[in-house]
């Protein structure tokens, strides 16, 4: 009997650890967080009291795809923060596993590129795991509703990582356009190639 209980517990903990890392989907509650910004202050959803929603993007200093999308992330913030949808960037990489993603290096990059949005350090990768962010860049669009903060879209910024297609589909912009007209976005999930989230090697 003891063995069975142990097995059930093991199975359950395996299930839990998997569930922890599952990527959030549209309709899920977007967990709030309190993370240190490059300016030293802590940022959470409440840092933007007038926001109608948030563009949460897991991105980093190093990934060529993230670098390729950097300007487009800045543009998203410049365009949509005044409309109530600010960008909140979170670096999901472990700074020991990716030494160019330390807090100091994040401060440096944010300063050099004049990031208009917060760029947060996720100590222990806790928020990364709560959202189930798997790659950089990985975008989550969240809306503020009477029922709380709800995930509306998960995936890519657009379908043009190379940045040379004038006919690109701008997923993120389309989602916010739909939300602004009180509609549900037509596309709520996309996939794109990206860099894996860097973690310490498992013992």
């Amino acid at each position, binding site marked *: 009997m003891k063995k069975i209980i142990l097995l059930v517990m093991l199975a359950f903990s395996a299930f839990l650890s998997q569930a922890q890392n599952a*990527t959030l989907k549209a309709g899920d509650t977007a967990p709030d967080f309190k993370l240190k910004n490059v300016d030293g202050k802590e940022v959470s959803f409440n840092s933007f009291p007038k926001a109608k929603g948030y563009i949460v993007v897991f991105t980093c200093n*190093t990934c*060529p*795809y993230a670098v390729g999308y950097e300007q487009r992330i800045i543009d998203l913030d410049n365009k949509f923060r005044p409309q109530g949808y600010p960008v909140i960037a979170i670096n999901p990489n472990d700074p020991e596993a990716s030494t160019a993603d330390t807090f100091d290096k994040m401060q440096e990059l944010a300063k050099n590129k004049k990031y208009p949005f917060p760029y947060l350090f996720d100590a222990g990768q806790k928020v990364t795991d709560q959202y189930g962010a*798997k*790659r950089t860049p*990985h975008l989550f669009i969240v809306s503020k509703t009477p029922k709380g903060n709800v995930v509306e879209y998960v995936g*890519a910024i657009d*379908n043009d*990582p*190379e940045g040379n297609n004038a006919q690109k589909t701008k997923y993120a912009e389309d989602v916010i356009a739909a939300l602004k007209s009180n509609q549900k976005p037509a596309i709520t999930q*996309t*996939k*794109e*190639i*990206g*860099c*894996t*989230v*860097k973690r310490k*090697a498992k013992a």
Partner: protein
Amino acid sequence: MMKIQKFSILAFLFVAFSFSAYSQNVKLLSIDQLNERVKNGKDSTYVVNFWATWCAPCIKELPHFEKLQADYKSDKVKVLLVSVDFKSKLSSAVVPFVKRKNLKNEVFLLNESSPQEYIDRIDPSWSGSIPATLFIKGDKRKFVESEFTYEQLLTEYKKL
């Protein structure tokens, strides 16, 4: 005048030949072609690694895949290295990389344009991050979205 013409013809032929020789090293491959390759291939196990020339952890683990192929050739294992670099980088980045690293495995460049479609066709659990590796043995498919040490790769391979 004749001389210049001859020279330019020679030069053209040289460039054309060396280009075709290069592009034979890295073939374009669609998902359909990959499935065909696995279905009709003579090997019993396929280890398909998705990588890119811009992906540091991918480059770090490529030697492990070279070693696996070299050490376990008699097992009828076939390693296929499928790059997800942009198609525009075939001759400027992928081919020179393969040459510089002297890769012995078969190298391909993924010839697909819609990640929405092809990522799920490789495996629905794939978020799209690389490195990622698909193991195929008969009807069994195992997909792993993470970086390997040689020991980890060998363990996954032997578990099949």
